[in-house]
């Protein structure tokens, strides 16, 4: 009797491993790193991991729509990077010595609105090229990626930007609890909030159903009266907005905007989405 139970547990465990290889790999990696690095299993590192993942999660949410409709967005990381750089430039303290702009010191939420507007425009640009000019998403976003990266270098003179308003950094790196004990970074709540919103959007609203329909069979969706052009434009625009929000948070989290470093999340986020959709 006892061994029977054990068997079925073993079988269930094996079945789980087979069905979720990615989760299993992640656990293995965590264990290995935890053994070799003594501060890996600490509350401080936990908080750190959470806030890093939170920003990537936001970018991944943006990419997810593109992937669901059998597209892709290679410009995700660069767009987030541009938003980070622009946020950095605009949020510099008024009294900072090497300011990049002559504009007066701006409220950080005004800056968020500005970068979101720019992100929306870039996303819409992707959407227009894909739907109206019929360029495949891979090619389109490969192109816009380069353009966006160029803009980023021009805007920052290829220099890292520092000297942000103190309140901005404090807000974004803020947390509930003490850094050395158990704590939850604010970013985690932001990610959870957006996650919930996207779940609702994808599962409970027409837009989500239309997205899956386009991904399932674009011709059939069009024949069924789905406005595929509008839906796709909306998806890429939403994606642009998500990258901008992520970029604004990224700059505050790192405390500086180093332009070359911000391309890294792109690949990570795309693979995060692809893996979870498998």
């Amino acid at each position, binding site marked *: 009797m006892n061994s029977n139970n054990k068997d079925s547990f073993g079988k269930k465990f094996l079945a789980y491993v087979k069905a979720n290889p990615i989760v299993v790999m992640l656990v293995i990696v965590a264990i290995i790193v935890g053994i070799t690095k003594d501060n890996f299993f600490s509350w401080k590192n936990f908080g750190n991991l959470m806030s890093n993942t939170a920003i990537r999660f936001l970018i991944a949410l943006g990419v997810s729509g593109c992937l669901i409709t059998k597209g892709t967005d290679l410009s995700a990381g660069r767009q987030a990077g541009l938003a980070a750089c622009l946020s950095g430039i605009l949020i510099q303290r008024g009294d900072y010595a090497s300011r990049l702009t002559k504009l007066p010191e701006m409220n950080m939420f005004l800056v968020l609105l500005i970068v979101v507007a720019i992100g929306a425009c870039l996303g819409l640009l992707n959407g227009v090229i894909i739907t109206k000019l019929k360029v495949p998403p891979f090619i389109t976003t490969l192109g816009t990626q380069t353009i966006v990266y160029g803009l980023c270098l021009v805007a920052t003179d290829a220099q890292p930007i520092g000297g942000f308003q103190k309140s901005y950094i404090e807000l974004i790196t803020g947390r509930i609890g003490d850094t050395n004990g158990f704590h939850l970074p604010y970013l985690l709540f932001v990610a959870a909030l957006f996650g919930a919103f996207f779940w609702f959007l994808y599962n*409970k*609203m*027409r837009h989500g*159903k*239309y997205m*899956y*329909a386009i*991904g*399932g*069979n674009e*011709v*059939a*969706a*069009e*024949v*069924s*009266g*789905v*406005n595929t052009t509008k839906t796709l434009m909306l998806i890429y625009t939403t994606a642009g907005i998500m990258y901008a929000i992520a970029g604004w948070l990224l700059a505050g989290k790192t405390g500086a905007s180093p332009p070359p470093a911000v391309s890294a999340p792109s690949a990570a986020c795309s693979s995060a989405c692809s893996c979870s959709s498998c």
Partner: protein
Amino acid sequence: MSEFVLEMRDVCKSFPGVKALDHAQLKLRPGKVHALMGENGAGKSTLMKCMFGIYTMDEGEIYIDGEKTAIRDPLDAWDKGISMVHQELQPIPARTIGENIFLGRYPMKKALGFIPIVDHDKMYEETAKLLERVHMNFDPRQKLGTLTVSQMQSVEIAKAVAGNCRVLILDEPTSSLTQNEVEALFRIVEDLKKENVAVVYISHKMDEILRISDEVTIMRDGQYIGTWDARDLTTDFIITKMVGRELTNLYPKRENVPGDVVFEVEDFTSINPRSFRHVSFNLRKGEILGVAGLVGAQRTELMEGLFGTRSHTSGTIKYQGRELHIRRPKDAIDQGIAMLTEDRRGSGIMGVLSVADNISIASLNKYVDHGFVLNTKKINDLVEENRQKMNIKTPSGKTLIKSLSGGNQQKVLIGRWLANNPDVLILDEPTRGIDVGAKYEIYCIIADLAKQGKSIIMISSEMGELIGMSDRIMVMCDGRMTGVIDGKDANQENIMALATQFE
């Protein structure tokens, strides 16, 4: 030596939730054409996939030349002389005929004595020989994409008979062929018979089966029903055995009464000069208008033009006296027009999505609360209502539509359109690739819709269906409308006369 080249005994195969094969059997004689018949879902394809090594049998035995054997995978099957031409061709259009035929088993040679490279000369030489065998006069270096569908099929057969082919499986080989092309295929089959190849022929077309086959095995629900000599069989007998009940009528009694003209098309012309031009016709309330024509008559194109998936240069569409401006499908849908497309897989179902998603996609606006939240309960009610009304066989609304049979997929798509409560329904080949029993059910649905006062346009390539179901039949030839025949006066001859009225 056994009298059978290949024998399958007591084959069982289960998939989660379904017993696809239940002690099925098949015995093939060399040099004979063996027809395998049954409704969709009867297990024909599964049995063939077991023979070809794509599936492993749960139970059962395979004998080749009387010796017990096992078939591990398609390559193993190929080595044992079994080849298969699949229902869905999977050609690589951008490569040459030769490369398609020798894909995966290229003849090799050694360059400089040691570097293995593909021996292109040998490959094309052998391709030329094979093409000759299937009566095709083509350059082996020609790109496959330049051929027509039937020519590609001949290439597939050439590929299948390369090597020591002893058993050839043809899975619905004629579903996309014209009459002339079918004749060409039959000539190839006759040749193969002379070479002592055993041919397994799967098809739904009775006249073909009775013409070409020597023996017929009938299956139902995964079970073996029996094998008969083809000479002793009649269509009625086969249908009775396939369906398991008597089908007294092929078409239901229609009780619809055509009323006033509600839908008028005048001088409708495509932007493509070789497509439909100057087509005018009208449609009455509660009428079934059949549309006949040969392949290439531009019937589908005309309907797609009306529905807004194709552009037109001139012409007007009037609905109840009002002129409609249709630029995209949504415009047509908003005006109460629905269109069931011809290519169920290409432009109908969204295979990876559920039945519920598929059935509700065209009418989601009706299932929204507070302007933005989808009402899952209402969508489930829609699925349930259709399931009962049309007898859709699906475990639940969450089932992926691709796992349903063709007939049930078609019912889901009809349900998708009916959810919008349209007044005009365009049905393009509504029963293509659907088995006899489900066909009858779909005819009943169509007849019932007409009785409810819906106006129906039905394109079909099956004469019997058109004559049996239509109040009037519009005939097209080469992009023009060549005539309209009253349903009562229609027969094969007067339809064909109009369908072949080339300029």
